[in-house]
């Protein structure tokens, strides 16, 4: 007794807990598990009780839709990987074998092919939502940046995936895109040879494209996890751009958001299934059903439709290196938007000038998409250059300028007041995706 007191009087020990067992609100088996691995608690906290703004429109369903798309892409991709052969002599035939002899192989492959396109459709709508409602603004900048990283990775893995069937567009697309690296000063040619593992796109390149296609797909999953964790910290933005203040402004994630997102997912799935089953090759290029032939160059080498706007930017710059720089920075510049646009108001609903800028930007996106699919000559080249100039002007001139000169419309004090204003017809929002 005396010994112990004398010890503690000399030194002071903090109590430690090397484990965090306990604290679960559940009992029985779920409680036993939850005490040791609190995923059940976390799930309830983040997906059932989680409070989200009441005013979310269907534009906020694309995150969930994208998650489902990603999961389906991985499931179909793994199934395809079990039958596909990444060999320059066998790749094309192995894809045909999947289409003909593997049970429901045609379904799995068409699903994978078309899901890639629909993933981009959803992601473009998702990005538009962010632009229009100012979801990139404080405190969601990091989420926005993570989103841009996901977008870059998506483009990389989509490009790599398109090379795998080893058709004419696969081969020549791969040749054109990998050749872009030769624009790097001094070490360009070395980098290209290193990327190919050979002196031309061939067997070695195809094999590594296959490995990287898998790797990047799972990297996307990783970054998506961060994107979602960040979302659950900063919370969803909403059409009003006003943060929720009390329970009049929010609903719990389940059953309100879940039922709404489920409906949106089903509508999206319906359109996807209809396209996949009745026009499975509509979004592809017929040349990719011709086996790769290094000796025959297709008349027009065109990337997949979702790359066309950026392909147009690449081609509108006469210099190869500057073209590559312009193409990469046309996406990377999105990452600067939270700081280039410093208006305190998030939602375009209250920003009359910015709203029009965003619509013009969307228009520019489609114009560039059209130009990317047209031959790079004459009037197309001129329009492409104007489009490219506007693209960058949107970020570097319009965003800061509008932040300064624009006078925002009068705003409601809270989300529930916003909802009231909407009912009274005081506010115009995008009708298409409203509930």
């Amino acid at each position, binding site marked *: 007794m005396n010994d112990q007191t004398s010890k503690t009087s000399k030194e002071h020990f903090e109590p430690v807990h090397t484990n965090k067992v306990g604290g679960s609100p559940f009992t029985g088996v779920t409680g036993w598990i939850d005490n040791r691995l609190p995923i059940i608690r976390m799930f309830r906290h983040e997906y059932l009780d989680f409070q989200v703004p009441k005013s979310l429109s269907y534009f906020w369903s694309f995150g969930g839709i994208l998650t489902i798309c990603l999961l389906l892409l991985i499931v179909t991709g793994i199934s395809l990987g079990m039958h596909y052969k990444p060999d320059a002599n066998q790749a094309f035939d192995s894809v045909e074998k999947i289409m*003909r002899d593997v049970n429901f192989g045609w379904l799995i492959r068409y699903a994978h092919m078309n899901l890639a396109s629909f993933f981009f459709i959803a992601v473009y709508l998702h990005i538009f939502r962010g632009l229009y409602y100012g979801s990139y603004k404080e405190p969601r900048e990091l989420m926005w940046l993570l989103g841009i990283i996901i977008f870059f990775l998506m483009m990389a893995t989509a490009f790599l995936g398109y090379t795998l069937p080893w058709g004419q567009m696969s081969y020549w697309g791969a040749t054109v895109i990998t050749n872009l690296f030769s624009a790097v000063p001094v070490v360009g040619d070395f980098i290209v040879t290193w990327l190919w593992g050979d002196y031309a796109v061939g067997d070695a390149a195809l094999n590594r494209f296959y490995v990287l296609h898998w790797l990047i797909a799972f990297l996307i999953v990783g970054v998506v996890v961060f994107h979602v964790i960040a979302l659950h910290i900063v919370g969803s933005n909403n059409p009003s751009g006003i943060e929720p203040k009390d329970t009049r402004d929010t609903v719990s994630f389940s059953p*309100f958001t879940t039922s709404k997102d489920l409906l949106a997912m089903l509508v999206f799935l319906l359109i996807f299934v209809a396209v996949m089953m009745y026009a499975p090759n509509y979004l592809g290029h017929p040349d990719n059903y011709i086996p790769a032939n290094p000796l025959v160059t297709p008349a027009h080498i065109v990337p997949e439709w979702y790359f066309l706007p950026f392909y147009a930017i690449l081609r509108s710059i006469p210099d190869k290196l500057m073209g590559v720089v312009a193409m990469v920075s046309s996406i990377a510049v999105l990452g600067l938007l939270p700081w280039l646009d410093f208006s305190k108001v998030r939602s375009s609903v209250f920003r009359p000038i910015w709203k029009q800028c965003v619509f013009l930007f969307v228009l520019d996106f*489609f114009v560039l*998409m059209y130009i990317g699919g047209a031959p790079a000559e004459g009037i197309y080249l001129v329009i492409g250059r104007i489009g490219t100039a506007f693209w960058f002007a949107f970020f570097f001139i319009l965003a800061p300028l509008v932040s300064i000169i624009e006078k925002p419309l009068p705003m409601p004090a809270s989300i529930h007041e916003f909802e009231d204003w909407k009912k009274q017809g005081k506010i115009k929002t995008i009708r298409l995706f409203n509930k």
Partner: protein
Amino acid sequence: MNIKDSFFRLRYFVVACLIFFFTNISIAKETNIELLKQNWSFDGFFGKFDRTSLQRGYQVYKEVCASCHSMKQVSFRNLSEPGGPEFSEAEVKALASQYEVTDGPNGEGEMFTRKAKPSDKFKSPYPNENASRAANGGAYPPDMSVIAKARPGGSDYLYSILMGYEDKVPDNIKLEDGVYYNKYMPGNKIRMAKPISEGSVTYSDGTKATQEQIAKDVVNFLTWAAEPHLEARKKLGFKSVVYLLILTILVYLVKKKIWLRVEPKV
């Protein structure tokens, strides 16, 4: 007020541009001549192949096309599978046995020839691409397994090519030796001589072998060869669309009911 008006005008402008964009995307694709559009039995939501036409098409392929074109991805057994020409298994066995294929090596290490079995792939007319080029004046008759998917316009394009040979060559086109004029070929020059004309084949089922009929039959066959599961796809497609439609309506009603809790009707 002014800003609001211009915003709406802008929105219609965007919509107009989108419509322009989507209607023009097909024009941006290479072909500039209107193809001969046919009413194919495999088009549409309930598209199905015409079995007898597929069987005749196989005959055309065998007697005409196969002398130059390979069809490496298709096996004899496919001819009896559901959704295709649906020959009986005995018929397919007989059809296959008309060909000799090289197999081996056998126990002594020798290659040997045997009659083809239903599990064998269609036999190519030439052992390799070089042999094929040598026999065709330098031109390579493409493999026809997926050709119906490998050309813009697909089946209509193939039909148009078969019907597009004309004796009268426009003055501005100079034909070299071994090159023929075709109205629908990009560039109007083709290395394949007119493959079919009236009476190129004799149909055993009494169908009159006009050029149109032969072209239609063989294009049916080529479309099936490129997409052997087309019928299964359309059948499953219809079922899944109906299923999803019903499910979507039910979920819509559920969602509406759930949201009544936060948005009671006034």
